[in-house]
């Protein structure tokens, strides 16, 4: 962390404000002059993209809430009212529904970035843990949001997933009844999901602030995984990364707008344009694409309760990453073995997503089980083992110094000291 720079208020008003509520100082220190590693690549722009996704969802959501009615007899029709009669209603609705998909796409890339560059490692454990909390909140928010249109998938997806609560021994059934407000998914459920769907994004917003705060305490990681040593390694956040983040966001927007304007329903399911019918189950109940990997894990396990535990476990295991992967070399760039296993991890995650939409039988079931095993093995077995046995490839001495040290030397001399051991915090 660079403490050489100091914000100095320039004019009378700034000085006055600075003594009472240092807003300008805060903005300057965190947004403008914040020293950021100069070698960040485009994978590092997704934090900003995600913030914009959150803001977009909140604004479009609040506007939709002006017209939506959270009652089982009116919900579906109120959404059609938005689509047909409200000025630009169709646009705002498609922004919100496709925005949710964009939000998850961005968060997956953001998380894969963290896994690849070791951003979850010491001293950034709390940033990572807060991130997993945000991810969990996003899933809950998204799940409840999908119920609100009260289509066939809304209703039956809610029924299947809430029924999982009943698998908990002893307390499962009463807890389920409490959650539903009744004996099946019905109006009380819809009403409370609407209230909570409105609330949780603001909770997410709060956790995001903590997440960024924690980041600013330690400073950003960077693609080398080697900590910043001095101001030669950093540049001010503004204008370099404000502009770069904005550029990345505009590229992201191009993709977002392709969906909104030219293919707004491709990421959804046609059955959700059919009003919910508790008496008629659709042929295949499928959640939204971003929940498919977890759905695949759930159905891979023959025992219902174990399936539920593993499904939640697949996210809970993420909390423990900083203690499962303890290798001092952070970045996969210099970890040839980890890189290969990580590549397979990504492939298996995508495969799980594909399998989540397929019926759980035959080859699909077999592949789901293999993928689930690999998923957990990657975190619980491979990471700890690699932490102990992996030898890193030659690493540069620092961000600004591309000269590599020879890590095969065992100690002795500055150039022989592995750079990752030179980190001090």
């Amino acid at each position: 962390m660079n403490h050489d720079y100091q914000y100095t208020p320039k004019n009378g008003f700034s000085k006055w404000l600075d003594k009472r509520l240092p807003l300008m100082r805060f903005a300057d220190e965190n947004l403008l002059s914040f020293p950021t590693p100069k070698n960040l690549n485009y994978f590092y722009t997704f934090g900003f993209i995600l913030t914009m996704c959150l803001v977009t969802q909140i604004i479009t959501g609040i506007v939709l809430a002006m017209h939506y009615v959270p009652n089982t007899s009116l919900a579906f029709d109120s959404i059609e009212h938005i689509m047909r009669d409200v000025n630009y209603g169709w646009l705002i609705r498609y922004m919100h529904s496709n925005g949710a998909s964009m939000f998850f796409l961005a968060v997956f890339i953001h998380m894969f970035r963290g896994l690849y560059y070791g951003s979850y490692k010491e001293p950034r454990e709390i940033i990572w843990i807060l991130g997993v909390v945000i991810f969990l909140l996003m899933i809950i928010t998204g799940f409840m949001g999908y119920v609100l249109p009260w289509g066939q998938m809304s209703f039956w997806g809610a029924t299947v997933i809430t029924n999982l609560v009943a698998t908990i021994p002893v307390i499962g059934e009463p807890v389920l009844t409490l959650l539903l407000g009744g004996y099946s998914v019905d109006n009380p459920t819809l009403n409370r999901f609407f209230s909570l769907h409105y609330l949780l994004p603001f909770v997410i917003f709060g956790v995001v602030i903590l997440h960024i705060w924690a980041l600013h305490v330690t400073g950003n990681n960077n693609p080398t995984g080697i900590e910043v040593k001095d101001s030669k390694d950093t540049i001010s956040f503004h204008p370099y990364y404000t502009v770069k983040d904005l550029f990345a966001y505009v590229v992201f927007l191009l993709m977002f707008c392709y969906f909104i304007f030219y293919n707004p329903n491709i990421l959804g399911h046609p059955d959700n344009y059919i009003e919910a019918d508790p008496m008629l189950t659709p042929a295949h109940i499928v959640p939204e694409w971003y929940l498919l990997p977890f759905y695949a894990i759930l159905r891979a396990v023959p025992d219902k309760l174990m399936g539920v535990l593993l499904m939640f476990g697949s996210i809970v295991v993420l909390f423990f990453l900083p203690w499962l992967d303890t290798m001092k070399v952070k970045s996969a760039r210099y970890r040839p073995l980890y890189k290969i296993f990580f590549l397979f991890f990504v492939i298996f995650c995508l495969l799980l997503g594909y399998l989540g939409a397929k019926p759980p039988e035959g080859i699909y079931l077999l592949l789901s089980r293999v993928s689930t095993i690999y998923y957990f093995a990657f975190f619980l077995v491979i990471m700890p083992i690699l932490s102990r046995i992996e030898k890193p490839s030659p690493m540069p001495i620092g961000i600004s110094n591309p000269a590599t040290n020879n890590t095969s030397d065992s100690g002795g001399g500055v150039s022989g000291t592995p750079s990752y051991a030179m980190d001090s915090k």
Partner: protein
Amino acid sequence: MNIFRNIFKNNMFIFLVLIFGFSASANSAEGTTFKNLKPGFSFEGPFGKFDKESLKRGYQVYSEVCSSCHGLKQLSFRNLSQPGGPEFSIERVKEIASEYSITDGFDEYGEPLERSMLPSDRFPRPYGSKEEAKGANNGAYPPDLSLIVKARADGYNYLYSLLKGYEEEIPEDLDIGDLSYNPWYPGGAIAMYQPLYDESVEYEDGTPATIDQMSYDVANFLTWAAEPTMEERKRLGFIVMGFLIIFVILMYLSVSRLFRDVH
């Protein structure tokens, strides 16, 4: 190990391509026996627009053939005259609406009053309730058609194929009871009898009303009915994408300029 670095550099694009692919496969038509016929509709593609004459004919098919069993409850008569649709004249729409009546309000004795419908009224429902609809149709509920095209994978091609697709000869191994055989319907046994025959309708504009023509026109009309704002969506999309492409170029140049003196 440079190979890996190059692959990973492009990972973002791989992600996106794979996600496109997975989502497309997740959305593939389930349960259809045949692949849908694709006659090609004018509204397809990023610059697509509705063929207004076909929409008008399609409305005629709906109102003369389908509306006795199938509702169109999300639409009002006034939608028929709004831009982006069949664009009937306002006078014509008033005429169409006035042919139907609706109970609205009470007289001084508390008896319900009848009046003829206005453009602002919704299309009338063929049945009072879902149960009544089922009762009148051998237990099968004729779905409301407002969203049918969005509620089916590849909706407009499916509808077109289905309406044209009734076949007299039933495959030997299929037992369909007293239902009709249509190979495009999942499972093949459909409760709706063939609704369209040559000249079921006499088109106002004189176009020969073959089964193929009527299926095409009504599929067109119902696509509009499911999404009346489609033309505006694509028009706005063109402006937005155009703007973003220019903006992204400007942003890219700004980033390049800024980062020239870093490193």
